[in-house]
């Protein structure tokens, strides 16, 4: 456990805080549990190793670190000062990756049980037949019971529910020892009576069994992804429930009486009760934290289009923030499973510090997608890894100094790294370790630049007009080279770069996004009244939920929208509109708006003017605004960063292919306003920022590093 803090003006000694309310964000990652606590405009960081057996232990040791920084006991901090406590974690992600979760039973419409296994087919776009695998089996065949019932697309009951059969099967599943049951019926989105009745029966005869109706998990059509969402929700429930209880009880025992909030993959927070019912919503909350922090940055700086990136051990995650809002992707995949949940649209490619450098089938060097993982990790860690990685390249090039890695806490074996690079790749190419590393660096940069191009161009934004925000431990070494490749001129490395995701937790609002499948041909105006009624019910449901979570009903912002498509298409496009637009005909109606939105997305003249319009899902997003940290910039006097210059280091700079004595700056001595021109590197405690030749960097009033390329 360790803790350190950064206060606005340099680094003062303990005991100088004037105590007021403190907001705490804790991000439980794969290796570290990061804590950010904000009091007024003072930021304190603490860090603990993630405790995989019981994640709450790591959380409480990080809390101890923070408390001692404030010169308080944990109990004092929690009972007298903490105003908010937001947690982000990887429990759902881990449970699904490791396929460790509940024993799930399923009740499914008769005739359709096998869909749970084969879905819609699982062929990938790899050429290789040996990579074509089946979906992992989440539910054994004997745990699936077909139930006689059927509802049609209009919501009419074709085959009534066989309740006796339900009772029989529930008892059988109970005897088989299931922890949870997912109820998966066709067209429950049009008529949920059967699913609800089964839920009632289960609660009555097996009250200890956790139940998820597919209509609860996701009230949208397309049965496979809705059913998978319900099943995965059941699957991840025990570890999440256990964790939520431990954290809530632990905090309560230490005097924290307010609501504990959990960060979800949409970048919002949820209360403990919502999480207990729909634990699946916690999926992918880690990357979302960074995107939300980036959105806050966009707001603070007034940036219209911002690309953000995070490079971890195994992957590079990137997304676009347009007008301060991260983009939402619908119908997301979780691991290999299609689901109906919506997440922030974060693109991930296999380029991380642990990505392995090797040769492809042609003998051409390649980077990733295989990774050395956290163990054994890169060769230079000396944990027995033999495959050279990107981290080994950065050590070889001199970007990571072996005696100063992570503040000297982790010695690095440069020679072993070089040897592996030469034997695995260099020998075949006739290259030494440095040449090999420089080649791998360029490939990694090209891969990441292609991913950034993807998230921007495919959504109609020119990357040259975006600002790139680079965070995480490794990315600031690559980010400037990536920007140069894409002709991006503005780049920001946030202060606390490696804990940026944890910081994002404190910038989140309470978000509830719900949808309902209508399948309404917009031209059928006679159905309008029933559509409006369905919409109003959905709206009420959201308002009730948010109110229950402790927010004032009047302050809730509602965003209306829908998944719409032209008749004859199979994929919908989501579009925002205002609730009264539904009633319009002619000028400004849904038809006109959708034609515009469609052409904005897909290009001029692509709208299907002759086709009908289908409103498939009505979507309402309710947002309750939470209080945000109020960081204010300090006054800045621009001055050369000479006082931060600690010396120089011989490095090979791959972007210009030169071995150079490169100036090294110490971030702790870089005051607001300090600037220099590259080439140079800034050593931050757990990050290294590369500033290439002819680029300038300045530390601004928020202590962020602003690069002009």
């Amino acid at each position, binding site marked *: 456990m360790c803790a350190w803090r950064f206060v606005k003006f340099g680094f003062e000694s303990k005991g100088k805080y004037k105590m007021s309310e403190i907001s705490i964000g804790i991000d439980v990652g794969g290796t570290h549990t990061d804590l950010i606590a904000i009091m007024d405009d003072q930021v304190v960081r603490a860090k603990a190793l993630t405790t995989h057996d019981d994640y709450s232990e790591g959380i409480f040791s990080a809390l101890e670190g923070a408390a001692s920084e404030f010169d308080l006991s944990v109990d004092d901090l929690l009972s007298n000062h903490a105003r908010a406590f937001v947690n982000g974690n990887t429990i759902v992600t881990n449970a699904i990756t490791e396929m460790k979760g509940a024993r799930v039973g399923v009740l499914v419409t008769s*005739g359709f049980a096998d869909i749970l296994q084969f879905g819609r087919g699982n062929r990938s776009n790899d*050429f290789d037949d*040996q990579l074509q695998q089946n979906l992992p089996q989440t539910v054994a065949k004997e745990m699936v019971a077909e139930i006689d019932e059927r509802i049609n*697309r209009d919501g009419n009951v074709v085959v009534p529910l066989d309740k006796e059969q339900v009772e029989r099967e529930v008892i059988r599943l109970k005897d088989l020892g299931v922890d949870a049951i997912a109820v998966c019926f066709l*067209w429950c989105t049009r008529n949920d009576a059967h699913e609800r009745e089964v839920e009632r029966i289960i609660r009555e005869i097996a009250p200890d069994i956790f139940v998820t109706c597919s209509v609860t998990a996701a009230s949208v059509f397309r049965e496979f992804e809705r059913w998978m969402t319900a099943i995965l929700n059941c699957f991840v429930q025990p570890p999440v429930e256990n964790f939520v209880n431990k954290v809530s009880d632990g905090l309560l025992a230490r005097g924290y009486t307010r609501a504990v909030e959990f960060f979800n993959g949409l970048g919002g927070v949820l209360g403990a009760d919502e999480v207990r019912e729909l634990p699946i919503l916690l999926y992918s909350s880690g990357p979302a934290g960074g995107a939300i922090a980036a959105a806050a940055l966009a707001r603070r700086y007034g940036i219209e289009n911002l690309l953000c990136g995070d490079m971890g051990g195994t992957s590079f995650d990137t997304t676009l923030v347009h007008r301060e809002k991260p983009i939402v992707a619908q119908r997301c995949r979780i691991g290999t499973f299609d689901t109906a949940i919506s997440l922030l649209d974060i693109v991930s490619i296999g380029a991380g510090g642990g990505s392995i450098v090797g040769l492809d*089938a042609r003998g*051409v060097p390649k980077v990733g997608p295989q990774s050395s993982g956290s163990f054994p990790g890169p060769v230079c860690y000396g944990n027995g890894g033999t495959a050279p990685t990107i981290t080994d390249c950065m050590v070889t090039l001199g970007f990571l100094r072996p005696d100063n890695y992570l503040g000297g806490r982790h010695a690095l074996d440069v020679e072993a790294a070089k040897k592996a690079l030469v034997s695995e790749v260099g020998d*075949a190419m006739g290259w030494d370790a440095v040449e090999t590393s420089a080649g791998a660096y360029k490939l990694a940069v090209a891969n990441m630049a292609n991913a950034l191009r993807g998230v921007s161009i495919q959504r109609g934004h020119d990357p040259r007009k975006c600002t790139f925000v680079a965070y995480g431990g490794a990315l600031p070494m690559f980010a400037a080279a990536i920007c140069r490749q894409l002709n991006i001129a503005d780049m920001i490395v946030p202060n606390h770069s490696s804990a940026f995701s944890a910081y994002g937790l404190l910038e989140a609002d309470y978000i509830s996004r719900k949808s309902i499948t209508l399948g309404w041909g917009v031209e059928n105006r006679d159905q309008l009244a029933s559509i409006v009624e369905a919409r109003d019910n959905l709206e009420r449901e959201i308002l009730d939920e948010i109110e229950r979570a402790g927010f004032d009903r009047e302050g809730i912002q509602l965003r209306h929208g829908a998944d719409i498509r032209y008749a004859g298409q199979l994929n919908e496009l989501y579009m925002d509109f205002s609730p009264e637009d539904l009633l319009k005909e002619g000028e400004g109606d849904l038809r006109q708006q959708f034609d515009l939105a469609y052409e904005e997305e897909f*290009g001029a003249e692509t709208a299907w003017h002759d086709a009908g319009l289908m409103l498939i899902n009505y979507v309402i997003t309710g947002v309750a605004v939470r209080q945000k940290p109020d960081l204010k910039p300090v006054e800045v006097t621009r001055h050369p960063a000479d006082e931060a210059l600690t010396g120089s280091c011989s490095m090979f700079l791959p972007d210009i292919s030169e071995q150079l004595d490169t100036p090294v700056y110490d971030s702790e001595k870089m005051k607001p306003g300090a600037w220099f021109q590259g080439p140079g590197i800034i050593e931050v405690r757990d990050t290294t920022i590369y500033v290439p030749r002819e680029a300038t960097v300045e530390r601004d009033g928020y202590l962020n590093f602003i690069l002009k390329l």
Partner: protein
Amino acid sequence: MDKLSQDTADVARSASALDPITAEVVRCAFENIADEMAIVLLRTSGSPVLTEAKDFSAIVFDAAGRQVGVAGYVLGHFASSRIAVQEIIKKRMPDDLEPGDIFICNDPYTVGALHQGDVGIVMPIYDGEKLIGWTFTNAHLIDVGGASISGMAPEAHDCFEEAIRFPGVRAGTNGVLNPEWVSFIEVNVRVPVSFINDVRSLIAACNAGAVRMRGLVAEYGLGTLHDYIDYNIELTEKALSARIALLPDGTARTYDWVEYDGRGTADLHAVSCEMIVDGDKLKFTFTGVDQVAAFINATPSAVAGLGVMTPFLCQFAQDIPFNEGIWNCIEIDTGRPGTVVNPVVPAPVTNAHMETGARLGRMVGEVLSQVCSLSSSATLRDRVAGQAPSSGPGAAWFGVKEDGELAIIFPLDSLVAIGGGAQTTGDGQDMYGFQTTLAVSFPDVEVHELVDPFFILWRRFKVNSGGAGHNRGGMALDQGYMLWNVDNFSGSCFMAAVELPARGISGGYPGGAGRSAVIRSSDVLAQLEAGKSVSSPEKLQGTLDILPAKVSNVPLRQGDVYWAISSGGGGLGDPFHRSPELVDRDLRDARITRSAAEELYGTVVCESSDGLTVDIDGTWENRDSVRLALVPTKTLRLKDVASAGGFNSVKAGKDHWACAYCDTELASTADNWKERLAPRRRLLADLFGAVQTQVRRRQHQPVHLAERYCPTCASSLSVDIEVEEAERTPPVFTFATGQLQAAE
């Protein structure tokens, strides 16, 4: 570094003085361009054939018409696009070409379409005045006019009856469709709105590719870019050559038949495949009977794309970046014109790809397995696989919807929910699709029911559809649906393989074949009326009308239930070597029946309160006694040889073929070892009938299985398919003289 890259590691270094890192960056940029084109196409098109079945592709060419970047969903289009672009170059260059020209291509005979339903767009890319490349996009459109909907005409007698053909004509200029052409097309296809919209999507995708290509030229300069294109083609060619060189020189052969029953008789049309390995080059020679007046004849791209490139990329060149360099290592010979593998106008070809094309692909998969099994490289010896059937029951329906509008419905589920061949890495993939269609999927039940006047009654695995083997073939779909709120629809149904299913390899068994049927005048409506669940065909009363594999004008009325069974993948290795635990799991998961577990896998099945389970020890004993009865010379226990592992049943020693499990010599390598082992012959229809596996019995020229066992360990070494009255030499690799190399 894996074995194969070590073998070819010097390629990149020696190829040229150009920088391999920049070459890779340029290559990724081309792939990226093709991917962006595919995304534009996918997101703007409404056709389910594109969005779910992924029946489309986007490909980038250099100015000389060489492929440089592909976004592969239909591997067959790799051949189509090349023929199309090269034909446009030949016909239009240098004087008849302007920036923004739009050429529309769906004629299989002139511009390389797999069949007329695949509509391609070719556009030149200009940078100012300079031609810098070509873009190609292609999609299977839901209708192209002609005798039958969706471009498949099972009963047409010539290609003029089939569909409208576009031989690379200029359908627009300056990037915009010519209104004259739009009005011409509008009156010649059944669903003009969707056709024209899809063509617009194809054009939009080409335009998106052109913008990016100009960006690359600006970044690198045209000269440097071309140097790197040459270099990447050379890298690919050398890597593939080096891999081919790891195969023994000689000739692999096999044979098959294309089924056609659309004229009232169940005819088999013979085809054969020969693959000659000569150093670092491969030559494929196909022969076939005279072309037939039915839609099965293979167009040039069906041969090169479905026949050769598809299995070649999935099985052999799977990790070598695709570009023109792949083609440079391969020669294809289809012999004299006028045969089913080299047809001429007016031979009908609307199902060229799914019939003869896919059938050639199955043969090529098999000859690749033959030759890979004998490679000196352990990696290549693992590239053997059961056949992918590439045959599912397609059905396209036409009728009047509730709202009075005409509806064309082309449900993809059964057509693409086909099993994959068993792999050395595990059982074949369920619902793998056609081998040529990557990333294929089929729509949800609710997606159908929302927009189509259908009510789906069941959607489940077809039990026993995966071919038996040490590794089992992938499973296929069994689905039934009926009309909902409409009446009197009419359909075309087509399926390639109902009598000759996907074969197993290395002693593995064939997968189940497919079938389509209508349960006529059933009691389905009465049962639903009474609130009963009709969740399986077993619950229905009615007349089972089994449809021919190729048929038009099939009526579907209220009370009829359309019932389709798709085909499963071929097995790999002796099923008596399969772990009894895995057979037990398959039995519990209802992927196989008790009869299949007992007969095909030799397991002892016990009945308990827990359901059916496999007796593990009893199974090994039973397997030994079953095989001892067949092979009295047997001395070894199957359990011992099965655990020796490996998926190649036969290996080549210095002079002799030998059983790979127990080293027993089988024959001199100068001979065909199969001719030295007397096979056990069984009627396929009898065996499959006994184990409840789908196949249609042939009355005339019945189909046999020829099963050959090792005389010492009695392992199944090969299971070949024979057709009575059509004698063939059993397929075995023939080593080139003096080229014998022992597998390490």
